[in-house]
Structures are given as structure tokens and as C-alpha cells.
């Protein structure tokens, strides 16, 4: 007996030794690797912030100097100031941070780059442009840039640079058919260092809002431009912007460390570092929150379910919620072979009860939506009626359309073909599945079969572009994209939005009206246009509005100062600080 | 080419005949030696087995494989155990060294070592040497690992090994030590095993079928070797074999086993010249020899371990049975002329009456 014990212990000891040695090796390697990553990332995004000419430091006011010294201090090791790092999570990797392409996560582009204007509470406010005049005929805009704005590498913001950036986007405008201003801008000239004048072909209602997007019309520093001067094509050299944060350290697929931009023109953030962990699965994010590995999660992708939100709230996490301007809705493929029939579309509209979705999926956190555009978009608030939940009408319409329910079958058929519709949604839209389940139930009641198709973002966009779907579930752009950019995108040969409307009988006329609306300066006429647009959307049941999205945030109760209202930033962590 | 081969063939044959010749002479010598040793009555006893009874455990059941065998081994003498395979010879050896797994075998009776002797003084040689060595360990390793057991330094061991190997007729001990078991011939390995056994300076050498797996010529060489070693180191040998010739050439005492019973036991010359038990006779009769014109083989085969034996185990194959033979098992009773000190035992009701009927 004793003997065996001895043997066992011996064996286990040996084993333990093995393990330690093994993992030890792994461990050291890991570190080495991380270092390598860091170097790589730093060489990629070389941080000039640390070595700025002396005089400029003098010039910078006390606060800035403080930030400066911090950068110096922290450059060595961030571990020293763990307190000073705010840890967030985001499902996707940072990517190449190209300011003129919509590939990198929006929050990051918003943090690092600024546009000329910004949108706060539905109002266009100055950002890099302090003020602007619009000529009477609305064809000439002259912007006056903010004084003394510096990029994170210390270089100055000049009107030339602004023009260079905008020109780069204009040169590649094929990708941005939803930016009407790119069409209209004929020329730009720079009378002086801080003034930029744009000459337009026609008046452009969307110009100011287009400029407020956090991509692609944002201003990158000189250091960002490759030799060719074409960021869009040849990629960004260094992500240098005027934004609140700068990319300090980036390890692909693991995390990004943002450092406070010492030259930021606005109010400095309280934290000097923000660390964004890449965590693809929402469940893991929640666990990480519970385990205190991340301080805060701001849910911009509608990934957090109401149940979990409530659970975390119950566990003593601080939570915050702001009703957004995005509307989650179904776009029915008017060119599809089944949904091409308007009565089927109307039937589906009648059969959809979005209050249930608001309750079941979002636990009341998101209100049912009334139209494709959020209520805050006053222009879109026309008399257009709405479909409320009346399944019997749906049944009647379907019967009329010849979709009969045979004995012993769950779903309607029309000369042999089953009445089934594919619902397509992006895989990051985690609640899409639940919504799908609810809709499946509701449509089953009227004899329509719904297939839930989750697709990766790439494929999702592809299918959307090619019109290869029954209905699409997504949240409208909201913010300053509404209404004009969306209209622009809905036009034929516009962005993927247009494919949905291909089958509308009055599509040509609709296009004309939209184009008109984009240029019409007269308030009254504009409203008429919108009335027409919204009515035809309604009559032909192109969109089924579901809920008005709301941004959720869950964070450690030791933090305070998060302000989701206003929706200027995608992830407004600037004001967040630790409680004293 | 062909011619060469034939030459080789003939040469081989010559060699063999020469060997055989030598062997015959040697056996004669051995005979003489035997008489010589037989003279000295008071050779000391090493170990004595007392009514060893080995039975196979199967849950509650017990199957007796060896029935109360007892014999003694004397210094410098060779005891030959002969019997068909499966008659319990090997078991006996293992019991002697107590190698039997306790949870499989049940051993009754005593193995009593006389003062000054112990299991440590026993070397063992097993049959088919090829499988007796660890395939992934060099032979030198096998020697070296004895260091722990014998309490000698590795260098010492190696030196010993080399000399022993040389002694046992291996001309290039270094190479052998440095090679793996599967690289050597059976004869070689047997020699290696012998020297490995001798390493511990044993007083008793248990040779369990030492020659079975070898071809005929090497067999004789090995036996020769054993004989010499015996002379040289004065060790006694427990030679186990199913081959009468082998026993005959070596043993001074013979113990004939059948189906786990000792059926006849006694000095070699008596047992071989005047066998008492019909089985022994059978064996002798079935042995080939120059004089014989034809060999009579025995019919039938020995009972298996699980077969229930009533009466004399040999009865079914015996030529001269009476009904008693089938009823109860005859005891192992002394026999033989009192003038020689050697007792001659036999397990038969009609011991020696064989010729009469």
C-alpha cells in the first residue's frame, strides 16, 4: 500500500515538473511574441507623440503638457498605471484604420479621426470647422477651420490637408454613392491656411451631414498619406488624426491600446489609456465583465440580449441606455419572385407584430418603430399610415393572391411552390436569431414559412448587393445619415439599399423624387417629396419597421460619467472616470 | 558457386560429426566424473522442496498442477527433471524462485533453504533466449542493471561480464555487449544468459529447457559448456528438459514427472538402466539410438491440468494396469537395493513387475 503511494507521488511530481517546464517554455514564448507584436504595431503606427519639439511643448498649455509628460511616463510600461487604463471589449479586430474606407470598426475611426462637422442631438455642430457660410444659391460653402488644431503627431491642421483628404474620397467616389456631396463638389480652393471653399454644381442638402460622418470624409494627418497620396487605394501609412485618442499599441486579434491624444483640441478624456479587447462572442464578453477583466461594454451592434442586460444590472453593474436614431427593420425584396407580389408584402406587414419583438427580444428596452426613419427625423414624419398587427387581413390578402392552405400542410402553396421567405441578417447582429424565431412563429400563423439565414458580414453585404434574399434584417444607419444619405443610397445604382426597391412599380419616379429631394432647398417642396416617398414605401409595403434601436452599456459600478445621450460619438468614453 | 556451397555443406557435416564424436567422449568423461562424485556420499544439501503443491486459482476453483513434489538439491550435483511439456516442470522451477504470481497460483508446501543458501544464490536460464531479453535494451544494460542487485560497481560488472562472456565461448564480448538481443543468434544469447546467470556467482543454476530453442549442434555446445562450468565453479544444476538425451548427458539424479506427479526418482544410472515405472520405460523405449532398429512411441497424451484424475494418472496410457490403478493413486514408495545409499522411488503399484507380465 505504502509503496504504491510513494510511486504515485513520485509519478505526479515528475508530471508536475514536466508541466511547469512545458508551460514555462510556452509562457516565455508568449511574452516574447507579444513584444514582437508590439514592436511591429509601433513600427507600423510609429508614435511621434513622444518626441515633440521643445517649443511646441511650451506652446501647449499646462493640461497638454501634463498629458505630454504622461505619454512619456507611460511609454515605458502601462502596467505601472493600471488604474489609468479603461478596458472595453469589441467583437472585431481593429483592422487597418483606413480613414477613407468603411472597413475598420466605426468606434475606432470616430475616436482617432475628426470630420469638419459633427451631429449632436440631431443638430449639425462645428467640429474641425469652427464656422461656415453658405452662399444664397446654396452652391458655395466656405469653412473656417478651428485655430491651433494639431494632429496626434504634432503637425498642424491646414485647409490644404483638409482638401487633400476630401479630394482622396472624391477620387474614389464609386464606393460612396450614398454621399451626394461627392457628386456635387466641383472644386475646392484654399484662400488661406484656415479656410476651405467648396463650389458645388447644385445645392446639396446632405453636404453638412455628409461631412459629419465618422467615415469616410474625415481628416487624416500628412503622415497618414502614402507616397501615392491615395489613402483609399494604397492604405493608410499611420493612423494619425486629430481625434481624442491615438493608437498606442495594437496586437492583432487580441487588443488595441488607445492613448490620449496630447494635442486634442477638445476636452481631454479622464483616462489616459483605453484598452479594447477583441472578444468575438458576446457570452465571453459577459463573463469577462463578471470576472472584472473588462470595465465596460458599450453595445453598438445590438449583440446584448435584454435578459443578460437585466441579469448584469441585478449583479450590481451600472447600466445605461439611450434610445438611438437607428431603426431595426425588415426590407422586403420587391424584386424577389415571391415578395415581388405586393399583396404578399402587405400580408407580411399585417402579420408582423413588432410589439411582441420589442417585448420578447428586447424586454421592452427597444420601443416598437412606426416607420423606416426614427421619429427624430422630422422630414420623414409624414401622414403615411402604418400597418398594425392584423393577421386576418394578412390571411385574406394571401388567399386573394392565390396562396392557399391545403389540408395537413403547415404552409401555404401556390401551384406546388411553398410560400417560404429567407430572412437574411449579419452574424454580428446577435439578436437577429431571436427576432427570426418570433417572426417565424408569427408568419407560421398565417401560413408563411420563414427561413433564418445568418451570414458573415462579407457574405451578408454580397447577398444584399446582388438581391439574393427574401427579406433583410438590419438597423438603419441613423445619426447624420438620415435622411439624405439613406435616400442617396436608395436610388437606383445607389448603394445596396436600392436593390430592395428594384421591383417597385413607380421606381423611376421615386428615383427622380429622391434626386430632387437631395437638391431641393425649399422646405415645403422638400416635405412634399418626402411625403411621396414615405407613402409609396407604405403602399407597396417595402419596409417593415420593427424597433427603434437603443444603445446599451454595462459597466463596473466603480465608474461614472458615461453619457450615451446626444450620440455624437459611437462609444463616448471621453467623460468616463473612476469614482473617487 | 554451387560447388562452393557443397563444400561448405560437407564441411558443416564434418564439423558436426566431429562435435558428436567429442560429445560422446565427453559424456563418457562425464560418466566417470559422475561415479567420482557419487563416491563422496556426504555432499551437502542446498535446498530441499517439501511436498510442493501448486494449483491454479480460478475464482473459487483450484486446479492442482503439481502434486506434492519433494526433492533435495545437493552441492555439485545435477538433478535432471524430465517429463513431457505441461507436466509442471517449469512451474516447479518458478515456485523454487517464487516467481509465481500470488493472485494466479497457489503454492503449498515448503521450500527450505539450508543455512548459508538463499534464493540469491540461484541463477536461472530460461528457454528461447530470444524473447528473454528486453528488445529495446542493449545486452550491456542487462548486465549493468544487475549492479543494484549484486551491489557491485558498474565498471566491475562490465569487467566481469566481459570475462564471463569470453569464458562462455564468445570471442568478441565487447561487440556482443554493445548489441541488441535480436541481433544475435540463439546460441549466442544462451551463452550470454549463462554468463548473466553466473554473474551472481550462483551455487545453484536452474536451467529450464536450456537447449530447446537451439539447433542440435549448439545444443551440445551449450550442454558441454554447462558441464565444464559445473566442474569449474562446483555449482549444482537443476536441469529441466523434456529431452532424455539432454538429461542423460548431464544429470546424476533424475526425477521423472508426469501430469504433475513425480512418478520415478533416483540416481541416474539406476533410473536409466533399470527403470521401474512404465512411463519411464516408455520414454527410454521411445529414445532413438544406434542400436535400435525401430522406435516405439507411446500412444495417447498426458491429461490436462483441468482434467479430473482418479487413480494413477498414467493409467490410461499404461500397458499393464489393474483395476486398482484406476481406483486410487499409488503412493511414491521407496524401492531399490539398500546397498547404494541413493534411494530410488517410484509411484506404481506394480513397480518393477513390468517385465514379469
Amino acid at each position: 500500500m505504502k509503496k504504491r503511494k510513494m510511486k504515485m507521488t513520485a509519478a505526479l511530481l515528475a508530471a508536475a515538473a514536466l508541466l511547469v517546464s512545458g508551460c514555462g517554455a510556452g509562457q516565455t514564448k508568449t511574452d516574447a511574441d507579444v513584444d514582437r507584436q508590439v514592436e511591429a504595431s509601433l513600427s507600423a503606427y510609429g508614435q511621434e507623440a513622444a518626441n515633440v519639439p521643445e517649443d511646441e511643448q511650451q506652446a501647449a498649455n499646462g493640461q497638454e503638457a501634463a498629458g505630454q509628460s504622461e505619454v512619456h511616463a507611460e511609454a515605458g510600461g502601462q502596467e505601472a498605471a493600471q488604474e489609468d487604463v479603461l478596458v472595453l471589449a469589441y467583437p472585431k479586430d481593429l483592422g487597418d484604420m483606413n480613414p477613407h474606407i468603411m472597413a475598420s470598426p466605426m468606434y475606432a475611426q470616430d475616436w482617432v479621426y475628426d470630420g469638419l462637422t459633427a451631429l449632436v442631438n440631431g443638430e449639425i455642430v462645428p467640429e474641425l470647422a469652427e464656422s461656415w457660410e453658405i452662399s444664397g444659391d446654396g452652391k458655395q460653402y466656405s469653412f473656417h477651420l478651428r485655430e491651433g488644431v494639431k494632429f496626434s503627431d504634432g503637425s498642424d491642421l491646414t485647409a490644404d490637408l483638409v482638401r487633400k483628404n476630401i479630394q482622396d474620397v472624391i477620387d474614389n467616389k464609386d464606393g460612396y454613392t450614398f454621399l451626394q456631396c461627392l457628386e456635387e463638389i466641383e472644386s475646392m480652393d484654399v484662400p488661406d491656411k484656415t479656410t476651405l471653399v467648396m463650389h458645388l454644381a447644385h445645392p446639396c442638402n446632405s453636404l453638412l451631414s455628409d461631412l459629419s460622418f465618422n467615415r469616410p470624409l474625415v481628416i487624416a494627418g500628412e503622415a497618414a498619406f502614402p507616397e501615392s497620396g491615395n489613402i483609399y487605394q494604397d492604405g493608410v501609412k499611420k493612423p494619425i488624426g486629430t481625434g481624442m485618442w491615438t493608437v498606442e499599441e495594437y496586437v492583432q486579434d487580441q487588443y488595441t491600446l488607445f492613448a490620449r491624444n496630447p494635442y486634442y483640441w477638445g476636452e481631454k478624456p479622464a483616462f489616459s489609456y483605453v484598452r479594447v479587447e477583441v472578444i468575438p462572442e458576446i457570452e465571453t464578453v459577459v463573463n469577462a465583465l463578471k470576472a472584472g477583466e473588462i470595465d465596460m461594454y458599450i453595445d453598438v451592434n445590438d449583440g446584448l440580449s435584454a435578459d443578460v442586460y437585466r441579469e448584469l444590472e441585478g449583479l450590481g453593474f451600472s447600466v445605461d441606455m439611450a434610445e438611438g436614431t437607428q431603426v431595426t427593420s425588415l426590407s422586403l425584396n420587391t424584386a424577389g419572385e415571391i415578395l415581388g407580389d405586393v399583396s404578399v408584402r402587405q400580408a407580411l406587414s399585417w402579420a408582423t407584430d413588432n410589439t411582441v419583438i420589442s417585448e420578447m427580444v428586447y424586454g421592452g428596452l427597444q420601443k416598437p418603430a412606426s416607420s423606416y426613419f426614427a421619429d427624430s427625423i422630422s422630414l420623414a414624419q409624414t401622414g403615411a399610415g402604418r400597418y398594425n398587427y392584423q393577421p386576418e387581413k394578412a390571411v385574406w390578402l394571401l388567399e386573394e393572391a392565390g396562396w392557399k392552405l391545403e389540408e395537413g400542410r403547415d404552409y401555404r402553396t401556390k401551384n406546388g411552390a411553398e410560400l417560404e421567405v429567407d430572412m437574411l441578417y449579419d452574424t454580428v447582429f446577435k439578436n437577429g436569431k431571436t427576432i427570426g424565431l418570433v417572426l417565424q412563429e408569427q408568419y407560421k400563423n398565417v401560413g408563411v414559412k420563414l427561413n433564418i439565414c445568418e451570414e458573415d458580414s462579407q457574405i451578408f453585404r454580397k447577398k444584399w448587393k446582388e438581391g439574393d434574399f427574401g427579406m433583410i434584417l438590419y438597423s438603419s444607419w441613423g445619426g447624420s445619415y438620415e435622411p439624405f444619405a439613406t435616400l442617396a443610397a436608395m436610388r437606383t445604382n445607389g448603394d445596396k439599399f436600392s436593390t430592395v426597391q428594384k421591383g417597385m412599380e413607380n421606381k423611376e419616379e421615386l428615383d427622380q423624387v429622391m434626386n430632387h429631394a437631395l437638391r431641393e432647398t425649399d422646405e415645403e417642396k422638400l416635405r412634399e417629396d418626402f411625403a411621396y416617398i414615405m407613402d409609396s414605401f407604405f403602399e407597396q409595403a417595402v419596409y417593415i419597421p420593427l424597433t427603434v434601436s437603443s444603445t446599451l452599456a454595462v459597466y463596473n459600478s466603480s465608474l461614472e460619467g458615461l453619457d450615451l445621450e446626444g450620440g455624437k460619438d459611437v462609444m463616448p468614453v471621453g467623460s468616463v472616470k473612476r469614482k473617487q | 558457386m554451387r560447388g562452393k556451397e557443397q563444400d561448405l555443406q560437407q564441411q558443416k557435416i564434418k564439423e558436426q560429426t566431429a562435435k558428436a564424436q567429442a560429445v560422446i567422449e565427453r559424456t563418457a568423461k562425464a560418466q566417470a566424473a559422475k561415479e567420482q562424485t557419487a563416491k563422496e556420499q556426504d555432499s551437502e544439501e542446498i535446498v530441499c522442496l517439501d511436498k510442493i503443491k501448486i494449483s491454479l486459482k480460478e475464482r473459487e476453483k483450484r486446479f492442482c498442477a503439481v502434486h506434492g513434489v519433494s526433492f533435495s538439491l545437493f552441492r555439485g550435483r545435477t538433478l535432471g527433471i524430465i517429463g513431457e511439456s505441461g507436466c509442471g516442470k517449469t512451474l516447479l522451477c518458478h515456485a523454487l524462485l517464487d516467481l509465481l504470481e500470488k493472485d494466479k497460483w497457489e503454492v503449498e508446501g515448503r521450500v527450505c533453504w539450508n543455512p548459508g543458501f538463499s534464493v540469491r544464490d540461484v541463477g536461472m536460464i530460461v528457454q528461447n533466449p530470444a524473447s528473454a531479453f528486453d528488445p529495446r535494451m542493449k545486452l550491456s544494460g542487462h548486465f549493468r542493471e544487475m549492479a543494484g542487485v549484486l551491489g557491485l560497481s558498474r565498471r566491475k560488472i562490465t569487467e566481469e561480464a566481459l570475462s564471463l562472456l569470453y569464458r562462455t565461448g564468445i570471442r568478441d564480448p565487447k561487440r556482443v555487449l554493445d548489441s541488441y538481443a535480436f541481433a544475435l543468434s540463439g546460441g549466442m544469447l544462451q551463452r550470454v544468459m549463462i554468463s548473466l546467470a553466473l554473474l551472481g556467482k550462483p551455487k545453484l543454476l536452474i536451467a529450464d529447457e536450456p537447449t530447446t530453442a537451439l539447433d542440435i549442434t549448439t545444443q551440445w555446445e551449450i550442454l558441454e559448456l554447462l558441464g565444464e562450468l559445473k566442474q569449474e565453479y562446483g555449482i549444482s544444476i537443476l536441469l529441466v528438459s523434456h529431452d532424455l538425451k539432454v538429461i542423460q548427458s548431464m544429470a546424476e539424479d533424475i526425477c521423472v514427472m508426469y501430469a504433475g506427479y513425480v512418478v520415478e526418482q533416483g540416481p541416474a544410472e539406476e533410473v536409466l538402466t533399470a527403470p521401474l515405472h512404465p512411463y519411464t520405460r516408455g520414454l527410454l523405449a521411445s529414445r532413438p539410438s544406434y542400436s535400435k532398429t525401430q522406435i516405439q512411441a507411446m500412444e495417447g497424451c498426458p491429461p490436462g491440468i483441468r482434467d479430473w484424475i482418479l487413480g494413477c494418472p498414467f493409467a490410461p496410457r499404461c500397458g499393464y494396469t489393474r483395476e486398482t490403478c484406476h481406483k486410487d493413486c499409488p503412493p511414491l514408495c521407496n524401492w531399490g537395493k539398500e546397498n547404494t545409499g541413493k534411494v530410488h522411488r517410484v509411484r506404481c503399484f506394480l513397480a518393477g513387475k513390468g517385465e514379469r507380465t
Partner: protein
Amino acid sequence: MKNYLQRKLLGMLPLLFLVSAAAFALVRLMPGDAATAYLNAMNAPITEAALHKVQKDLGLDKPVVVQYGIWLKQALSLDFGLSYMTKRPVIDELMLGFYYTAVLTGSAVVWIIVFSLPLGIMAGRRPGSFMDQFIRAMTFLGSSIPSFWLGFLLVEFFSLRLKLLPVQGAGTLKNILLPSITLACSYLAMYTKMLRGGIVEHSGGTYVLYARARGLKRRTILWRHILPNALNPVLTSLGLSLGSMLSGAVIVENVFAWPGMGRVIVRAVAGRDYPVIQGYILVIAAVYIVLNLGVDILCAMLNQRIFTEEET
């Protein structure tokens, strides 16, 4: 020895060739042509001109065989082209993940050794004993638990309840523990069983008996004779397992947000990122083949017989 190695190495080449061809073909079977995929990934509008340009750039206008040739030639210099999705060289993408996956697999193997060795021995020493039965039951349990399920339970218990180990991420020793254990668990049973079988089998061998006859202690016999022999098959199949682990770690990586190859490949497949998929298949296959070659050689070194047989 030398010619043995040569034969092994030569035997490897056609294998790799086959694999590469298959990898190329497989991915070509994917629906939708690469050019559009590329443009989609670029998030650029799909126009005829653009398509033609891309096809020229990616050499998609050439006949398939030529494409394969070019691809293979580049692949030999570890150049699998650019990832459609991230625009980074595929090899970088892969190596990034590969390193972490390798660490994970490596530590899993360590666990396997750590557990299966003592367990196997304990079970094999006394076959049929209570210990044996018990270990057997345990290993069966371990090998049958779905890895993700186990992962959840471990996280819930160690990370959230006890707050001992991190939930996600990589880098520190603590991070490795849970994933590697989860990964190892399903392989434990197999190896414990194998080892047990080997020990039982070899304990009955003549040379063990003979060793005991020579008066060697049971323990010495176990460690010096039985174990080395019993470990031989274990080693061989460890090579096989390593390969399957490398690719099988995907689920575990998903559960623990481990930045390994699994994440890369799942993303790539979901986004039809052909170059990455091809590269991945080729890299894994190559690693697998090389690993097994290594194991073969190792075994051969431990077991001289192979060579002698080769020579004769």
C-alpha cells in the same frame, strides 16, 4: 539510419503535392468567383472594369493549371498571397494564430502526459483491480464530455465562482490552463487506455519473468523494461493526435476567446477568404505530415529494431 530517413523524406513529397493540389481544387469549388469575393472584401462596387482589373491582378484569367503552378511556386516560398478580408499577407495571419494554437496544443499534450502516465501505470499494475475500474470509468467520462460543454462548466466554476482563472484572452500561464485542460480531456482516455494495455501486455513477457528471476525489483522492471516498451505505441499516436488537435482546437478557442488559428479559419471560411483557407489547409497538413515524420524517426531511434530490419 540514413537510407531510412531518405526513404521517409522522399515518401513525404508526393503526399505534400497531393495535399496542395487538393487544397487548391477544394477552394476552387467554392461558389462565387474569387474576383467578386475580392471586391466584396474590398467593399468596392462590382463593375466590369473592376472585375477585369482584379482578375488580372489575381491572375484569375489564366488557365487553372497555370494558376495552380503559380500558386504552388509562391506557396513553396510561404507566400500565399494577401487575405481578401484584411489585406495582410496570409502567412502573417496564419502564423499569428498558429503560434497561439501551437502553445495551446503543446500544453494540452503536457497535460495528457501528466495525467495519462500515472493513471495508465496505476491501472496497468493491477488489471481488474478497483483502481483499474475506477480510472477506466473516469477516463470514459472525461473523453465523452463535449469539449465546449466542459469549457463552460470550467469557466463558470473556476473563473466566475472561484475567480481563480481568467475567462478569456491569452498571454499568461493562467490563461493557458483552462483551454489546454479542456482540449486534453478528450484525448486522456485514449492514452490512459493505451498505456494500461501496453503495461498489462508487456508485464506477461518472458523478459520480465527473466528479469525477476535475476532478482530485479518489480519497480525497476516497471520503469526500466515495461514502461519504455509500453510507451512506444503511445508516442506514435501522439503524433497523429497532435495533428488533429491543431485543427480540432477551434471549438476550445471559440469558448475561451483564444486568438488561435481556429478563429482565423472560421472567419476566413465564413467570409470565403480563399487564400487564407488554402494557406491554412496547406500549413496544417504540412505540419501534420512533418510531425508524424518526426514521431516515426523518434520511435525508430528508441527502437533500434526498425533500422536493423530496414537494413536487412
